[in-house]
């Protein structure tokens, strides 16, 4: 690991000043950053430890029904907050399906949003990667690419954003609050992450020194709480990234879908909101035919970036399944295997 200066500022403005210099990076839990530094993929010259900054570790329920989550709230603490779980069950299901219990105990909300969009070639210094070294080329294009992007990719980069948490968040119109050199601003989570284009080295729209201080869900998010699920296909039962995943949230009145929110994970360099598919569901009856139409619309622009044609059909099926489960109702208790379409519980056929 390359050596670095370690600083631990006491205020947000000191942190922003310290991180604005070239080569600096913020450190929260470090569960992604230290891993990248050990692999020689990241080599910041200065780490600005934000873990002691005051006031960023609170979950606030706002007067308008919205929820404001400090950037330093740990993933596990958010997932196990009963009020948050009642308001946003699909977000909790996504959180609990991500990483392992040890990582969720450490990882912060802000860090989860800013974990690198990545693939195995990004992690391998011997491979060409435009994200790691702009202009170097992309070995993933002719390599092992069955898990790579099917939406929004470019010839420069076909990596996917690995966060589960971000998928229902983007469906529910989450907003991030950012403190930067020029003061505070807000960015819709949907606009935080960038598609690769010709500059895959930039994962997000943040500038040097920008610090995410909070994540906010609007009051409307909780109106979907009775019909909200997150579903995730993995290559093993637990502690694995999504091959594809889907968040589905419905507001159903008198047997009709009044409003639908859909997003996909594991398919692109950002959490992928499926707005056209949402429009198809508004006013429809919650049945399989409508769900299939919505799923086809959501993946209409998908194209394989390698040996991953199967992900296009798989994403549609996981979306139909997530919609069916959401329509059936949010379970009263979190499933034993959050977000899993499988269960080892033996069904009774009596």
């Amino acid at each position, binding site marked *: *690991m390359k*050596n*670095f*200066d*370690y600083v*631990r500022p006491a205020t947000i403005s000191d942190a922003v000043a310290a991180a604005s210099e070239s080569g600096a990076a913020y*450190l929260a*839990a*470090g*569960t992604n950053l*230290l*891993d990248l530094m*050990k*692999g020689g993929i990241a080599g910041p010259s200065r*780490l600005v*430890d934000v*873990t002691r900054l005051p006031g960023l570790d609170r979950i606030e329920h706002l007067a308008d029904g919205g929820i404001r989550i400090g950037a330093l709230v740990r993933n*596990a603490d958010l997932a*196990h907050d009963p009020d948050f779980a009642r308001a946003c069950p699909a977000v909790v299901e996504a959180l609990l399906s991500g*990483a*392992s*219990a*040890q*990582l969720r*105990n*450490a990882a912060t909300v802000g860090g989860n949003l800013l974990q690198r969009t990545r693939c195995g070639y990004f992690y391998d210094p011997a491979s060409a990667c435009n994200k790691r070294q702009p202009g170097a080329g992309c070995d993933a294009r002719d390599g092992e690419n069955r898990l790579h992007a099917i939406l929004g990719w470019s010839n420069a980069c076909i990596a996917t954003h690995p966060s589960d948490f971000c998928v229902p968040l983007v469906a529910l119109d989450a907003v991030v609050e950012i403190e930067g050199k020029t003061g505070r601003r807000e960015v819709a989570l949907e606009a935080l992450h960038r598609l690769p284009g010709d500059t895959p080295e930039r994962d997000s729209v943040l500038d040097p020194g920008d610090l995410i201080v909070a994540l906010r869900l609007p009051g409307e998010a909780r109106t979907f709480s009775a019909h909200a699920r997150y579903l995730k296909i993995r290559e093993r*039962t*637990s*502690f694995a990234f999504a091959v594809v995943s889907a968040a589905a949230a419905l507001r159903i009145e008198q047997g009709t879908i009044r409003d639908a929110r859909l997003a996909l994970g594991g398919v692109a360099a950002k959490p992928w909101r499926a707005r056209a598919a949402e429009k198809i569901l508004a006013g429809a009856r919650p049945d399989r035919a409508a769900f299939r139409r919505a799923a086809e619309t959501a993946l209409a622009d998908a194209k394989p970036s390698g040996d991953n044609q199967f992900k296009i059909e798989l994403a549609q099926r996981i979306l139909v399944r997530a919609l069916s489960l959401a329509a059936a109702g949010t379970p009263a208790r979190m499933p*034993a*295997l*959050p977000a899993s379409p499988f*269960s*080892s*519980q033996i069904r009774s056929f009596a």
Partner: protein
Amino acid sequence: MNLSISLTVNGVRRDVELADPRVTLLDLLRERLQLTGTKKGCDRGQCGACTVLVDGRRINSCLALAASHDGADIVTIEGIARGEELHPIQAAFIAHDGMQCGFCTPGQIMSAIGLIGEGQAGDDPERVREGMSGNLCRCGAYSGITDAVLEAQKSLVKTDQGRAA
């Protein structure tokens, strides 16, 4: 650049000078404090062999920068028995053959203590397996591990009720 930090490790205050800030909590425990019960497996947060409790919560010590944990309260595998009396989870791992080679065992046991403290798994083996998925066992002793955690949880809950009564 020298950094001074102090930690409470297994109930004892330890002051440590770090020659540079790259030291992980795992390397500090093993190399500076000679607490080698905590194991270095993958060193990348994937295997769980380095699991310790920090302020009562289980984390991967390999992905924790020591400097960032200045002031923290750490419990490692060396700190859970009372003299010769094993922690109930240690005893349950022996009773249920929850190991073969033993390399992952300190991490498994610290993770199990964390899991039971979190109170999310109850007596459901599927929830226990899910809750322990951050700890890999290459020998494949998972069945014994799950049984050990379930039994230890039962005895610990009973003890708590006994204390409350």
